């Protein structure tokens, strides 16, 4: 996985366009969900690595999002589910940028195909170099959000 800061920025930047702060928070939590589920299964439940691979698939994200949205209040459950799932899908897309020598950074098409997929734009050991770029994007997004809020007032 890239560092969590990159994951945060990838979800927080589009989150600028969401007015409801609760849905925005769910979008951000959603982007960490695949890793939380994977680490929980691997470290706490001691499952195999391949068992946890389902947490980084498009269908797996939908199922986990549905499970999580059941824990928020009924009135925002549907938009909450959409935000969680969108966050999870953003996580998978960000993971795909890694270059693992063709082995695949995750298996997004499970259960239809177990093959690993990657776009291969950046070496995993170099994702730390994205932090300054992430910080700049986050700063721009937060500035944009403030400007939107002022215009609406």
């Amino acid at each position: 996985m890239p560092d969590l800061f990159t994951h945060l920025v990838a979800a927080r930047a589009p989150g600028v366009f969401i007015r409801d702060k609760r849905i925005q928070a769910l979008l951000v939590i959603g982007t960490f969900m695949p890793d939380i589920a994977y680490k929980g299964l691997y470290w706490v439940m001691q499952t195999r690595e391949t068992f946890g691979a389902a947490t980084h698939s498009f269908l797996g994200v939908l199922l986990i999002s549905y499970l999580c949205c059941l824990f928020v209040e009924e009135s925002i459950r549907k938009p909450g589910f959409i935000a969680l799932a969108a966050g999870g899908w953003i996580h998978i897309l960000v993971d795909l940028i890694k270059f693992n020598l063709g082995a695949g950074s995750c298996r997004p098409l499970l259960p239809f195909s177990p093959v690993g997929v990657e776009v291969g734009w950046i070496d995993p050991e170099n994702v730390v170099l994205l932090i300054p770029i992430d910080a700049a994007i986050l700063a721009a997004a937060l500035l944009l959000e403030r400007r939107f809020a002022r215009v609406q007032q």
Partner: protein
Amino acid sequence: MFSNKGYGWKLGAALALIAALGVYAARKGESINPPLWRCVVEPRRWDNTVLWLPYARVVSVHDAEFEVAATDAKIRVTGKSPVPVGGRLTLRGIFRADGPRIELIESRPLPPDLGRRRLLMEVVSVLVVLVVIANFIRHFSIRPKVLQVEGVD
């Protein structure tokens, strides 16, 4: 789908589906990139399997092959080492039962300051998690006592 009607059933169904997807992924993905120690222990079973070693240290270098120590086992690799003895690399190759050995497809040297880069990423990731949890608590109140009272009614 998102109402409180049949809440327990929905919760149970979501959990069951996630578990089923995990079991399916574990079975389907077993033959994809198995751990090196399994290949070394059962070479005939994993003959001709494509392997990716995300991290390995070069132990010795010879004319047309070199030996690497991964986190779980040592193995000979046929091909030219991109780093000298003691250097670290990531590699992908085909596991051959005769030897056993790995036939090198592709490799990449890892930077010497990999430990420092990882430490920085871990520190940033922990900070991000703390910020996200703080933001989540700001927008959602977790009130188990209220839930208990509502449950009694």
